[in-house]
């Protein structure tokens, strides 16, 4: 139905897709999986006309096509359902469903009776029951998505692309959604399904294509691929691969004290976290494992007070921390290095110096006035210790390289003398040299008695850097790897939900 061959797409400095072949067949649900940066979204955007390919061919219904705009792709019959439904929330379900093709009466006015009837028929044929007269926004997210799907089908879509459709749905809504997807399959529509949830993939998908670093590493029938193998393909690690020491700069184990300095107890946030508990001891690096969307960043943010939780609490050194307040968490000694360094970490327009001093300002000032001499001393110390390369402390942080930006952020937190350091993807997007430096630094800090929580999509970094690994899946802790079990094999088994020590791929 829709195939691409030899697809290449580059962005300045990055090769997002190279030589990708992909085929969505009629009456088939095709899973598209891969970790962050694997090229899924780029591929989808090429398929839907958002991006133009640099090389390669898109064939649709047997003829080569080139969609210049998303509209063209839509008119050709390729519909995309995004996580955020792109419909008009204030209009009725029926209006949304028939937007732009409303049945008209003789006077060119909208014929509401007919519109409601047609809308109801369309929805019923897909097994969806909602009042089509109600405004869309009064419906649940799931029902809204259903309407979006119905609309896609109603405009005679031949290919439906779904990007993480279940991420904000209740289990009941998910099963309804799957019913609809099955109906679509029976009607001979090609469905491309993007998700990280293993269960869903195996429940609904027929074929799978695994992307990694912009290339296709596997494509074939999903039933022929077991879970463990799928995880290993996504992460790019072989099962049973000999563990090579020294690839990363982590030294490995640390001597951890017995008493935990931080305890997260049954953290729960709707749709994101379910009863996540973990503890960190001083001098220990605990890894947080799991696939994209498993709740790793959410856990870190919840501990740091940056994600409101519905229940559960965080205890630091025996004292509970007020939930949902970043300043409270910081005062308690929790520091978070956020995943999105550029928008949530650095303040790009301020200098290296101001960025380092930012969080520690109250301690570096008298009567509300900044003590410049003390700031200079601290900034100087950290710039030397972390080897921050900047033309001067007054250079804007936005002008630094990724690695140096990350070091500036680390310095900002270290200046506060935290007890707990939460590192969310500390080495993503920084060059090899800086990566090694950051890894060595994390080790050093743990040795000095800091409790470190490490999140990394780089399994190798995670395994080698951590003393223990807590594995998350769909927002819940599924296993904790300790001692000799801290291996990539076990991590992948945990993610694929295969019992410990189970059979190899």
């Amino acid at each position: 139905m829709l195939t691409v061959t030899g697809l290449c797409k580059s962005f300045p400095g990055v090769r997002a897709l190279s030589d990708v072949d992909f085929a969505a067949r009629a009456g088939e649900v095709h899973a598209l999986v891969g970790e962050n940066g694997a090229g899924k979204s780029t591929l989808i955007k090429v398929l839907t006309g958002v991006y133009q390919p640099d090389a390669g061919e898109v064939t649709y219904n047997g003829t080569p096509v080139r969609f210049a705009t998303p509209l063209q792709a839509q008119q050709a019959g390729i519909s995309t359902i995004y996580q955020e439904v792109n419909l008009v929330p204030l209009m009725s379900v029926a209006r949304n469903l028939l937007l732009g093709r409303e049945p008209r009466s003789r006077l060119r006015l909208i014929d509401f009776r007919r519109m409601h009837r047609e809308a109801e028929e369309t929805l019923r044929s897909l097994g969806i029951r909602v009042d089509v007269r109600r405004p869309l926004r009064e419906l649940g997210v799931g029902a809204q998505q259903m309407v979006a799907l119905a609309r896609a089908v109603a405009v005679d879509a031949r290919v439906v692309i779904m990007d993480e459709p279940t991420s904000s749905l209740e289990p009941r809504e998910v099963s309804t959604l799957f019913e609809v997807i099955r109906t679509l399959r029976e009607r001979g529509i090609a469905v491309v399904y993007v998700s990280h949830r293993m269960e869903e993939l195996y429940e609904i998908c027929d074929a799978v294509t695994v992307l990694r670093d912009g290339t296709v590493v596997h494509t074939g029938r999903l039933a022929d691929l077991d879970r463990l193998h799928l995880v290993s393909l996504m992460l790019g690690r072989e099962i049973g691969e000999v563990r090579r020491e020294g690839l990363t700069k982590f030294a490995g184990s640390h001597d951890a004290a017995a008493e935990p300095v931080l305890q997260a107890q049954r953290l729960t946030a709707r749709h994101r976290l379910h009863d996540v508990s973990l503890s960190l001891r001083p001098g220990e690096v605990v890894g947080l494992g799991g696939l994209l969307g498993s709740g790793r960043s959410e856990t870190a943010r919840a501990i740091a007070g940056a994600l409101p939780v519905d229940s559960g609490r965080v205890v630091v050194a025996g004292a509970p921390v007020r939930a949902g307040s970043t300043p409270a968490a910081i005062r308690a000694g929790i520091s978070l290095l956020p995943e999105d360094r550029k928008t949530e970490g650095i303040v790009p327009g301020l200098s290296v110096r101001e960025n380092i001093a930012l969080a520690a300002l109250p301690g570096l000032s008298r009567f509300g006035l900044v003590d410049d001499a003390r700031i200079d001393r601290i900034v100087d110390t950290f710039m030397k210790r972390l080897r921050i390369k900047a033309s001067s402390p007054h250079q804007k942080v936005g002008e630094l390289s990724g690695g140096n930006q990350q070091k500036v952020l680390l310095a900002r937190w270290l200046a506060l003398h935290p007890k707990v350091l939460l590192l969310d993807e500390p080495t993503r997007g920084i060059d090899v040299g800086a990566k090694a430096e950051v890894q060595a630094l994390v080790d050093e800090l743990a040795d000095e008695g800091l409790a470190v929580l490490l999140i990394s999509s780089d399994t190798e970094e995670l395994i080698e850097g951590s003393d223990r690994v807590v594995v998350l899946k769909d927002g819940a802790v599924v296993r904790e790897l300790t001692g000799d079990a801290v291996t990539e094999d076990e991590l992948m088994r945990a993610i694929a939900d295969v019992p410990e020590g189970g059979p190899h791929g």
Partner: protein
Amino acid sequence: MADVSLARVTVDRDRALRLLQNYGVYGGVMVLLVFNFAFTAHFASAENFRTQAVQVAPVLIVALGMALAIGTEGVDLSVGSVMALSTSLLSLYLGYGPWIATLIAVVGGILVGAANGALIAFVGVQPIVATLALMVGARGLALVLLPQLKDVRNPGMAALGSGDVLGIPYLVLIAAALALLVAFVVKRSTFGRRLLAIGDSRPAARLAGLPVRRVLIVVYVCSGALAAVAGVLATARLTASDPTSLGTLMELSAITAVVVGGTPLSGGRVRIGGTVAGAVLIQLLTTTLIKHDLPPSWTQIAQAVVIVGAVYAARERGKR
């Protein structure tokens, strides 16, 4: 200004643009001064400079508060109405003496600022909407308190409006002192640093544990207080409280001064020196056109040209 930057464009366009952004407003002021010295009769007199300084003082004081609000990626549209409220309160309480009346007027400004800040920081209303609401509300309140123009005959207020120290009018001294104070606060205080961080990257500031809400409230309180002070000074100068017309379109003049002065609307930067120069530039422009008796519509067109020029210069800066 134009000649200098044109010459450099060929050499280094980026550098020229940065110079234009940072110093264009000072260049503009210089050009207008030179033009007036050359072509305007009786321009080079102490009396004239006094007049210009006195006329610019209220706008300048309001623009200082506006610069803070814009520095947090916000805006304060209620300043003109706060001036009106301030003049109403002043007139209403002048029986207690000028000091107490001034104090109450400033407290009024602070309350409006606190309401602005609370709407923005706690309720999460967009600054432009929140301050628009207070702009309407404060003007209404001012007119309820004092429905029409009322003369101010208090000798203390009259002295404030027209008195001087060593030939420098009180109004100018107060405006200069406030400009220095605000510049000092922005440069040297923790509050100033936090304000800039919040304006530059709100999520980063929040994750760094900065008291975002408190800083926002203080910013709008400062803006309200400064506008109230400007209202008191304008009243003293006019020797009358006129809540019906005092401060109308003041918010636009203040925003113009700030933007022309090189403070980007995207926040994260506050240029007090530039703001002062921006206010002076607009004042000189208006004066030049009045002194040459050009039609008033020309003033508006000239202001538009200056704003477009400033926004053009700021365009590249936005693409950081």
